């Protein structure tokens, strides 16, 4: 890994600059777009920290589901085909568990504050049912 600075530190520096020096001067649509830009950098940072591990985990789960290894992309294409053709039943518990774990991992990179993640973790911890019971 390249250090002094790391890519994460560079992203932090750019984010801070945008947030503290640039954002206060922006108006209207640009004020909105600078927020989006800062969010994009935060997403890149999280992906840099966790992306490789998340993909490796997904690959391990998919290899177990499909019975063979491959690149994560190839396994994902195959999984799509098998769901579509019905060769993997759409209520298969291992399939559901994999898709759920992948969705939790991806939203953790893209939008960790998104309420759907909170709801998913709540469902896991309490086996509660806020969605259906209300």
């Amino acid at each position, binding site marked *: 890994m390249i250090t002094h600075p790391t890519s994460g530190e560079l992203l932090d520096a750019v984010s801070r600059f945008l947030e503290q020096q640039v954002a206060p001067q922006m108006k*209207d*649509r640009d004020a*909105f*777009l600078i927020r*989006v*830009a800062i*969010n*994009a950098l935060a*997403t890149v940072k999280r992906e840099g920290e966790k992306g490789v591990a998340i993909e490796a985990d997904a690959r391990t789960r998919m290899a177990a589901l499909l019975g063979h290894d491959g690149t994560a*992309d190839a396994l*994902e*294409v195959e*999984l*799509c085909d098998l*769901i*579509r053709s*019905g060769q993997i039943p*759409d*209520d298969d518990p291992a*399939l*559901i568990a994999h*898709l*759920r774990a*992948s*969705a*939790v991992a*991806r*939203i953790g*990179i*893209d*939008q960790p*504050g*998104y*309420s*759907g*993640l*909170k*709801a*998913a973790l709540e*469902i896991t911890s309490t086996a509660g049912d*806020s*969605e*259906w019971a*209300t």
Partner: protein
Amino acid sequence: MEIDTLAVALARLAPNLTPGGTLTGEPRRLSGGASQETWAFEVAGPGGVTRPLILRRRPDGLPTDTSRTATLSTEAALIRAAGVAGAPVPNVPHVCTEEDGLGEAYVMDRVDGEALGKRIVRDAVFAGARPGLARQCGEVLAAIHAVPLEGLPPLSMSDAAAELDKYEAIYRTSNAHRPVFELAFKRLRRGSGPAPVRTLVHGDFRNGNLMIHPEAGLAAVLDWELSHIGDPAEDLGWLCVNSWRFGEYSKPVGGFGAYADLLAGYEMAGGAPIALERVLYWQTLGSLKWGVMCLIMYAAFASGADASVERAMIGRRVSETEIDLMNLLRRAP
């Protein structure tokens, strides 16, 4: 349209909106949908009374025939028909003709209130209105679904099967491989039988398109461009999609209310009873649709048609719909 050309045309139109009226101040472009332009302007009457108005127009160079949305004259006719049926809608004093020089457009009176979803679910000023909103939404949807279809301009027909066909075709051409979407299409196909009744469907009835007044609650239903004939449960399900709850996920109706209140309001106002299962079905289809829309919007970035950071980042909202879909689909069908 250039603001100067627009101002000249609105100045010419002003006396038709208020007898003896004149355009006062500059028209202001409001942010919002890319498919329509929305302008705020004011006409001053001879007595010194100012009438706050909105012009909604199709942007230049966006041909009607390639758009899947209703024409603006259709939209205006639907707003008027929904108003007659008892739904709160803006008054539409004028539908533009060619002589107005404004293109495809109509004028409506401005309605007091707030349409920004985040404020509606969080701001203290709406704390009094929030508890009644889900029921009000149910009542208003019942009124919209009761609009007689005879006399309406021609509208497209779309039920669950047609929506799934449309969005699956778009997903396939995107060349994205999203196993969660595959699962959702597969599961939703099973429940896509024909709707028990077909009614006018607003098509985009969600927090963000509803004008909310701090005291009166639901003051106007906006953005009728996706209206069609279809399954009335579609409107109830779309309102409950988590993406428009603005963080208030434990209040499934728009981030402000409970399913039971929405359904009770609907039935009390004469709507044919809709089972919660059916609302959840359309809510699931709604999350899937929004996910596919995020993919299309990202495609505009990938093709270079819109190189903005906003377009790029909307692609990362696909995972928001995937977590919502898994929360809904985790149970056996």
